[in-house]
């Protein structure tokens, strides 16, 4: 059940890498139990926002508040304790190459020793079964798995500590449409089985429409007018098709729009320069 009390609050968040501003004054709140999809074109700062939520990236300005606690105020031990309440599904699964599938999934259990050693195998097998993977993959190394299987192992590893928040970074990128739908289905099943709050970063509109209660669209800072907000859409999935902002509709429909014109202009510019040089 979705309650009104926000679990995650992002206040005036800005992130800059060197001279490059990625996020500027982003404000977002996420109520407990909600599934939020953050969409936007590549390089707009979706993943940076996701990583800032768990303290993997330090903001240049602003703050992230998780369950009434400001992440920047926490010491390493407290931050570790808070991070154990999260599960993070990375874009390329980020499984440890040197460990087997079973060791990867059991990794958080072993690190925090929350359950007895003899229960590890049972828990790992159960988590893998939840994501549709057989016991035969337990002894395999990540390099021996397909992209879809790796993502599912990543999801099983994220679920193993019974997290309150699940963060998905591009869960369907690089997968065929059928496997992408399997992952979408797993996200929905996880949500129905466990009382989790989820944030799904994606540029796949099928995923956003299917799994999310709410969609937020971020626009790249480099293309943004001065002082314009970086979040250009925040609403329910049904509303996004009726959005008035052309930038939103173009993204939803997958239209290049003025990008194509820019491309043509640059191409023409180069051609005319070339003509000039040869003429």
């Amino acid at each position, binding site marked *: 059940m979705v309650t009104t009390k926000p679990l995650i609050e992002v206040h005036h968040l800005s992130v800059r890498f060197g001279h490059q501003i990625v996020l500027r004054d982003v404000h977002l709140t996420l109520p407990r139990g909600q599934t939020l999809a953050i969409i936007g074109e590549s390089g707009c700062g979706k993943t940076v926002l996701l*990583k800032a939520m*768990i303290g*993997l990236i330090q903001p240049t300005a602003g703050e992230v508040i998780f369950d009434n606690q400001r992440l920047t105020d926490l010491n*390493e031990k407290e931050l*570790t*304790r808070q*991070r*154990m309440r*999260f599960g*993070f599904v*990375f*874009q*390329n699964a*980020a*499984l*440890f*190459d*040197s460990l087997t599938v079973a060791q990867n999934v059991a*990794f*958080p259990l*072993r*690190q*925090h020793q929350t359950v007895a050693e003899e229960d590890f195998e049972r828990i790992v097998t159960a988590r893998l079964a939840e994501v549709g993977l057989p016991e035969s993959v337990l002894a395999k190394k990540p390099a021996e798995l397909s992209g879809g299987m790796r993502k599912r192992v990543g999801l099983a*590893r994220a679920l193993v*500590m019974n997290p309150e928040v699940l963060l998905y970074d591009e869960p369907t990128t690089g997968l065929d449409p059928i496997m992408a739908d399997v992952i979408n289905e797993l996200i929905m099943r996880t949500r129905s089985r466990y009382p989790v709050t989820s944030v799904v970063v994606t540029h796949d509109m099928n995923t956003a429409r299917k799994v999310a209660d709410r969609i937020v669209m971020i626009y790249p800072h480099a293309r943004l007018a001065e002082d314009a907000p970086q979040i250009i859409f925040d609403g329910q999935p049904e509303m996004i098709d009726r959005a008035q902002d052309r930038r939103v509709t173009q993204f939803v429909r997958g239209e290049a729009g003025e990008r194509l014109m820019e491309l043509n202009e640059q191409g023409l510019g180069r051609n005319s320069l070339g003509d000039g040089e040869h003429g």
Partner: protein
Amino acid sequence: MSSPPSQAANPHPVSLMDRLSGMIADLGGAVILWRDVIIVWIETIGDATLFVWRIFSWLFSRLPLRGTLFPAFYQIGVLSLPVVALTGTFIGMVLAVQTYTQFRLIGFESRLGAVINMSLLRELGPVLAATMLAGRIGSSMAAELGTMRVTEQIDALISMGSNPIHYLVIPRFLGCLLLIPSLTVMADFMGVAGGFFYSVIILDIDSFHYWNNAREFVAVWDLFYGITKSVFFGATIAIVSCYRGFHCTPGAEGVGRAATAAFVYSFVLILILDLFLGILLDKMYYFIWPDSPKLL
């Protein structure tokens, strides 16, 4: 008719003012470039110092996990044994080849044992073993950690509530700190054996005089001297390589650059440390044994 060459090359002569302002602009650009380079260096030194501080604070606050320690020790120690043994043996033999001709001219060939063993224990054993290990272990650690950084495995580790310094760096640091001195002893031993083999078996030097001279000139202090240096070399290789791996830039190029930088920086630091530790240890020696003969 063609125009004079000077006119053709420079149709619009540049005024003195233009040239002067151009020079000032160039100078300004150079100053800005140097300022940026200096800032980056200061940032890197500060960052590396914090990295070392975090290593030592984790080292003394929590024991490393056995599951991470043994694979690191195996990788650093056991797998390096053949290459270090080979390096040591050949250094010993090469030293015999190089010094024999010179010493024979002055009739001192029986002193070869002293020269070879002293050079090996004090200098060549520790430095060349460390150089070899910086290439073998340092580059591999930087590439491994760099790949983990690029493929978000380090982020995954943090997100699961683990500390990457404790989980990834401490086992490697301890491995280098404890096993590089042990490997240096191995290189010394093999070098002594290699030098003896070449001098006595190939060059036909009398074995009694060879060992007698070696015993007379080489003492336990020389072994301590080399091992002390190798402890610092081991720590340097671990810190530099792990730091480069952790701060790897994205892509295959970034990983390659981290591996190369790990070796180059380790090698340079080994040479610098070698000089300063040499001076320090010599001062220590003459402080403890002030009556020992000095060159100057």
